[in-house]
């Protein structure tokens, strides 16, 4: 039984390290920031997640006390990772607006906005559909 658990723990640890490496390899390798955002999110959820599962199995099965730290770290990472990625993407789109027609902007075009006349939001105001009615108010 202990051998099986040791094997599971070792497999999870190696999986965590491999996912961390794959995520950072994607970060270093992929061409533009919007595609680079994919890599580290896998390192966060799968890499750190499997390391945490390994430590959650390891400590009770090796006669050490169980602690809630792993659950808290998982909770914080899984809540904050999408928000951080969203903020970075917003800052990138905003930087493209500010920097205008530089070479890096033209080489990596953004996907088209959802409908014509719309623009990817950074902090711009959406255009009002009927300007005449607003003037009467």
């Amino acid at each position: 039984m202990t051998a099986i658990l040791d094997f599971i723990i070792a497999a999870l640890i190696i999986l965590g390290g491999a996912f961390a490496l794959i995520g950072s390899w994607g970060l270093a390798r992929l061409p533009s920031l919007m595609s680079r955002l994919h890599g580290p999110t896998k390192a966060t959820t799968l890499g750190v997640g499997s390391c945490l599962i390994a430590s959650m199995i390891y400590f009770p099965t090796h006669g050490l006390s169980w602690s809630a730290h792993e659950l808290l770290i998982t909770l914080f990472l899984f809540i904050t990772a999408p928000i951080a990625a969203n903020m970075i993407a917003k800052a990138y789109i905003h930087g493209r607006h500010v920097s205008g027609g530089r070479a890096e902007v033209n080489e990596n075009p953004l996907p088209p906005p959802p409908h014509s006349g719309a623009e990817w939001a950074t902090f711009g105001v959406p255009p009002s559909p009927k300007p005449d009615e607003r003037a009467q108010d």
Partner: protein
Amino acid sequence: MIDLALMIALACIALAVLLNLYRLLRGPTASDRILALDTMVINAIALIILFGIMEKTTVYFEAALLLAMVGFVGTVAYAKFLLRGDIVE
């Protein structure tokens, strides 16, 4: 077996931190550098957890928990500064 797995995983994460450092130095935009720093914090959390397993103690998990919280705040502050030119408005 666990010791060998820990050594392999620690080597993988060390290599990952080097790749993050390459992206941090290379850029090209400020957002790339923020993303590289965020990934470095996450890899540091993984390193601390694996080190805790290696040393058979849960003391280091406090540091990992603090990094998980403070790293997010740092990332959001950097992105907010790029977006608005100010952090607390």
